[in-house]
């Protein structure tokens, strides 16, 4: 007999405390012991999670108006420029923006972490002055208690898979995939594998616009497809993309986040970025979803890419699985290459468990997407052309 559950049925079970929730790790063990059909019959929700460096992150802030008021034209938070080419006292602080006084040491990500931790942030702004906003400069301090709205809005998070980075060249290179030692000295990877949200829902049946999620320790939402969302990449026989594919744009209340799940980072000789913790609950709507959430590290393949070649199209040298990556070594060109994780599996597991308890305790209900993410769409590149060339298509 086929199994089917609606969001409303699951939410009713959450309200009555009868919901069955397991993490995406636990469901793999359960499926190995009892089979996928047992999972389909007995599990309502599977929690997925990831905790990795996500450059395309940032936050909108509204500072409130000073007396006399200012229409901020340029703004700095702890000497990190924020974007204020919007209304007078609105600004967006991007994670990767670097401090003008302490570059490669402090940046927008650190402002965000300090803000969440409740630390005071120095606000400096300048303007040209208008009849309605006469003030031309301001310097003061803000905290999360003094500002109006503060919400994280990350244009691209939670990549559905990501290639492994290696370095064929003769010198050590410093990349956003970490330090890559020469002549295939190591291989770095950055995905939670079987725990990763979009790998557990590869065709975006349940993760879409409006999906309620764990974002940085607070409740957040999927706002849109993420930038560079690329669902049309090659997939394996399980329907899992073998390279970076779908992405999510996410939103959530910055003030209620927890520094434990949002951490500023400096990647050596690359710059500043933000580690973001994301958890997504996946409803086991039917057998198909049960199959999807039971994927294991050995089912998930990813490409091995040579970062020693500094071009847009870096050579793909082979393919591996997360099981092999997690073993500590991969085989590449007959060599045993040590692997290095960049995203934190222990944090991802922690988030999956926190989210599980939120659902078990009725703190979070599931939200059906109000609009699906695209499943057919390719990625465009930026070409350098003249006006005539672009006019002629």
């Amino acid at each position, binding site marked *: 007999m086929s199994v089917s559950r609606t969001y409303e049925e699951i939410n009713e079970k959450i309200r009555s405390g009868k919901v069955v929730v397991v993490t995406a790790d636990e469901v793999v063990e359960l499926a190995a012991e009892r089979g996928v059909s047992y999972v389909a019959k007995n599990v309502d929700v599977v929690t997925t999670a990831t905790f*990795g460096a996500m450059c395309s992150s940032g936050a909108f802030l509204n500072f409130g108006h000073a007396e006399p008021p200012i229409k901020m034209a340029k703004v700095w938070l702890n000497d990190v420029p924020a974007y204020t080419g919007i209304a007078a006292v609105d600004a967006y602080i991007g994670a990767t923006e670097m401090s003008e006084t302490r570059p490669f040491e402090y940046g927008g990500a650190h402002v965000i972490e300090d803000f969440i931790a409740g630390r005071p942030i120095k606000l400096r702004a300048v303007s040209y002055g208008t009849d309605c906003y006469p003030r031309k400069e301001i310097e003061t301090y803000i905290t999360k208690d003094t500002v109006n709205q503060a919400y994280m809005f990350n244009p691209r998070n939670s990549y559905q898979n990501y290639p492994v980075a290696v370095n064929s060249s003769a010198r050590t290179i410093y990349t956003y995939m*970490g*330090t890559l030692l020469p002549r295939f000295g190591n291989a770095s990877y950055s995905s939670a594998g079987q725990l990763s949200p979009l790998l557990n829902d590869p065709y975006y049946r349940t993760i879409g616009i409006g999906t309620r999620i764990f974002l940085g320790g607070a409740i957040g939402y999927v706002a849109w497809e993420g930038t560079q969302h690329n669902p049309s990449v090659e997939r394996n026989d399980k329907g899992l993309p073998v390279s970076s594919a779908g992405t999510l744009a996410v939103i959530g209340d910055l003030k209620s986040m927890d520094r434990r799940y949002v951490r500023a980072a400096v990647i050596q000789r690359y710059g500043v970025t933000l580690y973001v913790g994301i958890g997504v609950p996946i409803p086991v709507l039917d057998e198909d979803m049960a199959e999807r959430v039971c994927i294991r590290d050995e089912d998930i393949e990813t490409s091995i890419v040579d970062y020693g070649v500094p071009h847009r199209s870096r050579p793909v040298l082979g393919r591996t699985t997360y099981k092999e990556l997690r073993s500590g070594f991969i085989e590449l060109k007959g060599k045993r290459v040590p692997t290095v994780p960049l995203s934190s599996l222990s944090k991802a597991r922690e988030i999956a468990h926190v989210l599980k308890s939120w659902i078990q305790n009725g703190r979070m209900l599931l939200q059906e997407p109000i609009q699906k993410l695209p499943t057919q769409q390719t990625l465009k590149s930026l070409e350098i052309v003249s006006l005539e060339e672009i006019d002629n298509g």
Partner: protein
Amino acid sequence: MARCRVVLTFPPDTVQHPVAYHLVKDYGLKINILRARVDLNEEGKLLIEIENHDNKSIQKGLDYARSLGVSVELVDKELQWDEHDCIHCGACTAVCRSGALRIGAPDWKLTLNKQKCTACGLCVSACPVRVIRIDF
């Protein structure tokens, strides 16, 4: 066999003493210099692994070094890892050739074996959240 890793810190006026020579020659210690920073006009630092069949000789040798004004610290004092604030990503393990920093199954939490550390310092800048410090 007794073995330990220590950091010898030389005040400027002791830098010219051939301390390592005396440790070998007079105290019969087998020493392996893992890292050195020597500047005749400034403080110098030497990270050495010392081996001898008997720990007493090691202690005597180190007492000799101390008598010259050289400070002697076990290597773990020089290395600080804030485990509580660590996000356990594993990025530092990319550069740790000594194998002191490790991450893996089952719990995927970073571990630090200070006895393997050579205080090379590469992990300090490879750590994205800056929770490792080495005073060398």
